[in-house]
């Protein structure tokens, strides 16, 4: 007992103050990509050619689909004009699929859930995670939210075992054919009102596994999604930020000192 107390005192209290205080992410962290179309050279298609998932489209104004982006470095390396770069902004969860398609302007971040949902679920949100054809990285970084540092429970959010006790699903993975049935059955088992959160490029678009005959390219068209969290895998902060926006715990855009700087 004394030993436990001693260890506890040395380990200390570790929960961050987020969202009141923002953590500083390392220089090399690849946050939300920023696209400066003004710098684009006429007719240059290098980035689109380099992109392994076809996330960049150049028909008309250049667009980058965050839902497909794997956050590799290919497009940035390929661009001869520096029109593409990664910021350190971890905020990129969106309420609508189309909000994930970035062009030069600001991104529309996730909004609070609809009022009737919010009245019921705003302060107590229990989620059932379903992993359906992922590489496991998204699951691990979702799980990280339960560790002492992020401590999801302080926001009234909790992951539960039984979908009957849940208010929504968190889906990761590209939805393998073999998990399709189980995913639907789990969704059916959740009492209404319920929400769906798609975490990671796989769940949004199939990610690295897109167009494999063994996957269904994400949850789009299978379940109605309330929150999209892009990334491959998303940083835990990105997921947390998205969930907190969903339950209205982050409303204003906080000033991101130093975070958005490259």
């Amino acid at each position, binding site marked *: 007992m004394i030993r436990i107390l001693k260890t*506890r005192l040395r380990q200390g209290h570790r929960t961050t103050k987020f969202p009141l205080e923002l953590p500083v992410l390392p220089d090399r962290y690849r946050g939300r990509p920023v696209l400066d179309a003004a710098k684009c050279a006429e007719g240059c298609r290098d980035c689109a050619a380099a992109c392994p998932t076809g996330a960049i489209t150049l028909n008309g104004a250049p667009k980058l689909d965050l839902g497909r982006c794997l956050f590799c470095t290919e497009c940035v390396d390929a661009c001869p004009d520096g029109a593409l770069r990664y910021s350190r902004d971890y905020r990129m969860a969106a309420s609508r699929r189309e909000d994930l398609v970035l062009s030069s302007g600001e991104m529309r971040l996730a909004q609070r859930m609809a009022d009737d949902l919010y009245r019921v679920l705003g302060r107590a949100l229990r989620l059932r995670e379903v992993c359906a054809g992922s590489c496991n990285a998204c699951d691990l970084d979702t799980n990280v939210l339960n560790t002492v540092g992020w401590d999801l429970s*302080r926001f009234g959010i909790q992951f539960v075992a039984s979908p009957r006790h849940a208010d929504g699903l968190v889906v990761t993975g590209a939805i393998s054919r073999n998990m399709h049935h189980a995913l639907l059955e789990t969704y059916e088992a959740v009492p209404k009102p319920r929400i769906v959160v798609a975490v990671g490029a796989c769940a949004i678009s199939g990610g690295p596994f897109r167009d494999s005959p063994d996957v269904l390219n994400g949850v789009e068209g299978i379940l109605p999604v309330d929150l999209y969290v892009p990334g491959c895998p998303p940083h835990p902060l990105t997921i947390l930020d998205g969930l907190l926006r969903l339950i209205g715990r982050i409303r204003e855009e906080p000033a991101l000192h130093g975070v958005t700087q490259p």
Partner: protein
Amino acid sequence: MTVLRAIGAVPEAVAVLALPPMLLSIIAKTKAWFGGRDGPPWLQPYYDLMKLLRKGVVYSRTTTWVFRAGPIVNLAALLCAATLIPVFSDDTLLGFGGDVILIAYLLALGRMLTVLAAMDTGSSFEGMGASREVTFGTMSEPALFLSFVVLALATKSLSLAEMLGAPLQAAWGDVAPAMLLVVAALLIVLLTETCRVPVDDPATHLELTMIHEVMVLDHSGPDFAYITYAAALKFLLLGSILVHAALPHASWALWIDAPLRVVELAVLAMLVGVIESSLARLRLQRVSLLLAGAFVLSGLAAVLTFYRTHA
């Protein structure tokens, strides 16, 4: 007269009914401190209940009316027991001679219907939880009754309010070691009946290891709210018995008694939190040994008390 008393008891009853989720919060906060985290907000158990009451329900096509009756009968039985168990003062709403037996059997009735509701789902998970619940319930019952024998001997009463009231104070002066053993046995019974570490782990989400949680996997919405609240209420009721047994004192005015008892209950909840933070769970097969231990403790207390009262 009785009408007046009943009206006077209303605020007290409301306070008793409002308290249980807070005790769970205290346990959660204690555990959060040991983990080095913030932990859920103080009012989280209340938020959870409110949400569940507003949620829809999903019923399995395997279930029957038994599944729906389970949570209701369980909560009704516990509320009924609440009218017999002294919480704030040494007085109870409807206590009478012989009510200890009724209290224990009301808890058993609640257990029976909860367990049957679990079996109604036709799933091996719920069956597993049901089997564990009745196994450990069966084994904790003799320890509980033997503790009651000791208290009855020491106080010459069969009404719980009296057994835990002023006469017990004298017993503590007389056979303190026996009372200490009874308190220890009651603590083990409390940990077992309310599914706490080292018997069960309320925090785990692993179906195969759970006892209570795995029985209620299929309940949702208001039904689940009843179950969640009933679990908290059970902790309060058994905790009250334990607190009264450990620290008996004569009834003063309610405004002194009530805050004092609340503090004592809070300390008990903290103690449970500390136990949960410093011990790993027992292997399931060893829980029966723990309960046998509780039985031996109360048996020892019985022998000591016999020695005193039958000298």
